[in-house]
């Protein structure tokens, strides 16, 4: 049972994108998980895609538990966790679908690990969900992050892998944000949060 | 303070304070035999009969399992033949270092030179690709021999014939150190050790060092008298018994092996 209503508009917008699209999904601080779930659920259930979830905001185990709590099975999604290695004991988790990268500053490792997972998957329809640019911005210098997103988006677009990039715009440096706007093909904007 | 070893009373009675040289007449000349705990160094001339004396020395073999004969020149077959010839006991421990060295090291060197000159054949390469470890043929014979003698228990009897093998391959200082260790072991365990070393090419310094470590120094010499050879052994050092210093001319008989004939006192 969902603790909140999913945003059907996101699912509708996703029907418009193709595999080589790069979608920027903007959210606010308070609706991040709702927006994430509203994006992931159609990808998994409606479009029956496989994918890689890069978690830079929270540990992957916490993300998985969040999805499990709303009844979404993410056991066939591979997670790349950039947070837990920075916490002693953080990598001791009961999930086998989590890959750990030492730090969010190891951006190239994240890209390579994602490519590795995609190479080992049988699925032909894959997505990459990057959660989130603003989290990466905490550790990485603006110019480097902008450069990275450029490479990241182009790499997966070329490989026909749908790229979904979550972003809280008011926590993202302007240089990164403007570059993201430039490289992404689609925008799902849920950044203007109305608190009921 | 030196380590003290407690000897069994019965053993003390059985073995006595002296052991036989294996040559009864020589025992008589030395007033009963060789005192237990003695290390003897025999400086030898080529053809002087020292190899036979070495074998004869182990022949009393009070305890065969505590008796060790180490030969660096002869093979097992030759040693057995001599022991059988004189009806000496065959159940003592014998180690033939020279034979081992030939079969391990020389064989390997021969093969290496073949590989270097003629190259590898396909079967050699296949074998090489499947060989994961180097055969341990680079043995440290000096340490092995030292350990082997040191492992012998009270009232042991050991012969090393001869030290030349080690002096040619090792640092002489290591060899001297080994002799020193063996001497201490013999003293502590009331063992008897005979070590032969050839005088040919032996440095005076090493000779002097060995002589100073030894409790008894023998020299085996051979000289020509007319058309005959005369073999003699000279006792030039006998710790605490200078009356035993003698020159003994000996001959070899089919029954008794080395047998002293005349005695010349030198002290």
């Amino acid at each position, binding site marked *: 049972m969902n603790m909140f209503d999913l945003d059907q508009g996101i699912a509708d917008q996703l029907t418009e994108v193709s595999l080589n699209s790069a979608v920027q999904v903007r959210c606010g601080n308070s609706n991040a998980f709702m927006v994430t779930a509203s994006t992931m659920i159609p990808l998994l259930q409606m479009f029956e895609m496989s994918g890689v979830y890069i978690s830079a905001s929270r540990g992957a185990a916490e993300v998985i538990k969040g999805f499990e709590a709303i009844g979404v099975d993410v056991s066939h999604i591979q997670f790349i966790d950039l947070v837990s290695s920075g916490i002693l004991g953080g990598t001791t988790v009961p999930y086998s679908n989590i890959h750990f990268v030492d730090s969010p500053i190891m951006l190239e490792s994240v890209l390579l690990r994602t490519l590795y997972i995609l190479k080992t998957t049988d699925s032909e329809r894959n997505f990459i969900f990057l959660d989130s640019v603003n989290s990466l911005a905490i550790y990485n210098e603006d110019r480097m992050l902008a450069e990275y997103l450029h490479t990241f988006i182009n790499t997966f677009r070329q490989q026909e892998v749908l790229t979904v990039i979550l972003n809280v715009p008011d926590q993202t440096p302007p240089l990164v944000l403007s570059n993201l706007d430039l490289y992404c093909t689609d925008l799902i904007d849920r950044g203007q949060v109305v608190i009921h | 303070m030196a380590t003290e070893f407690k000897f069994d009373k019965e053993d003390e009675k059985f073995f006595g304070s002296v052991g036989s040289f294996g040559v009864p007449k020589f025992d008589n000349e030395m007033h009963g035999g060789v005192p237990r705990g003695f290390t003897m160094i025999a400086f030898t001339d080529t053809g002087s009969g020292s190899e036979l004396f070495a074998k004869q020395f182990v022949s009393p073999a009070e305890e065969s399992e505590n008796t060790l004969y180490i030969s660096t020149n002869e093979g097992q077959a030759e040693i057995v033949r001599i022991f059988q010839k004189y009806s000496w006991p065959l159940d003592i421990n014998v180690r033939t270092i020279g034979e081992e060295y030939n079969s391990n090291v020389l064989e390997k060197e021969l093969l290496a030179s073949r590989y270097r000159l003629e190259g590898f054949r396909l079967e050699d390469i296949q074998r090489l690709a499947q060989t994961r*470890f180097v055969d341990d043929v680079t043995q440290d014979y000096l340490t092995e021999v030292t350990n082997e003698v040191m492992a012998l228990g009270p009232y042991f009897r050991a012969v090393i014939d001869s030290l030349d093998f080690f002096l040619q391959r090792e640092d002489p200082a290591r060899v001297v150190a080994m002799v020193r260790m063996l001497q201490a072991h013999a003293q502590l365990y009331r063992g008897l050790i005979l070590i032969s070393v050839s005088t040919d090419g032996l440095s005076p310094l090493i000779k002097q060092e060995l002589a100073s470590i030894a409790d008894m120094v023998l020299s085996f010499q051979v000289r020509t008298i007319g058309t005959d050879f005369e073999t003699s052994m000279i006792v030039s050092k006998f710790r605490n018994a200078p009356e035993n210093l003698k020159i003994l001319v000996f001959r070899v008989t089919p029954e008794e092996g080395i047998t002293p004939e005349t005695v010349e006192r030198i002290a």
Partner: protein
Amino acid sequence: MQPAGQYSRDRCITGVHGLDEILRGGIPYGSTVLASGTCGSGKTTLGMEFLVRGADSGEACAHFTATEPSVKLLENIRQFKFFDVKMVDSGLINVFDMDVLYSWLGLEKSSFDLDDVHSLIKAIVDIVNTIGVTRLVIDSVTTLCYKIKSEQLIRDFLFTLGKKLATLGCTTILIAEITSATENAHWSSFGVEEAIADGIIVLGDVERMGHLLRFLQVVKMRGTSHSRAKHAIELTPLGVMLTPMLKWGAVSDTHNRWGA
């Protein structure tokens, strides 16, 4: 004969993800390539993958190991998903322990003279020739050259070996160890290796905010154009994976990386 500018040498396709792209198709056949790097930078893994990829396409490969026992090496090679033990059983991958080779050649000594060096070259060339090896890895040439006391002799050794292997059509990777101190000064321990080699691939680490990121950079490769950029690498069960290193993050962020 091809018009000038159209000639291109046949390539040994390494099979290493991304490396053939950097080399515009692979290593020119018969080249001797120095793969130098600091410890833990992935040199041995790169060498092993080069061989396994070769064996996978039916080529006979040889690996001379002086830095770790072949038993360990063969155990580590199993991590590759594309490795099949039949490659070893059928003789496509041949791993030789250098200490066994030294022992067989009577070279168990601390330093080699000219005669010893020639014996060693002859043995390696013999092996390559007899079993038709087209891919060879020597891991490491540094360990081997430590036994050759003269720089001139090291030069002769590498030059003669490289020339003979090239004649036999064997593409060779010579793995060289460099320390962090020499990393910026040289791409090899003795300095002569890099001059003799047809190609140089450098592997190392870039320090970024206290984390080490592995990189690979092709510094030189005769007979082909190639990228000279630093590439980040990951060692995975699918082999070495490369991606261009971020330009803003390709330089270590501390001048003195060891903080001394």
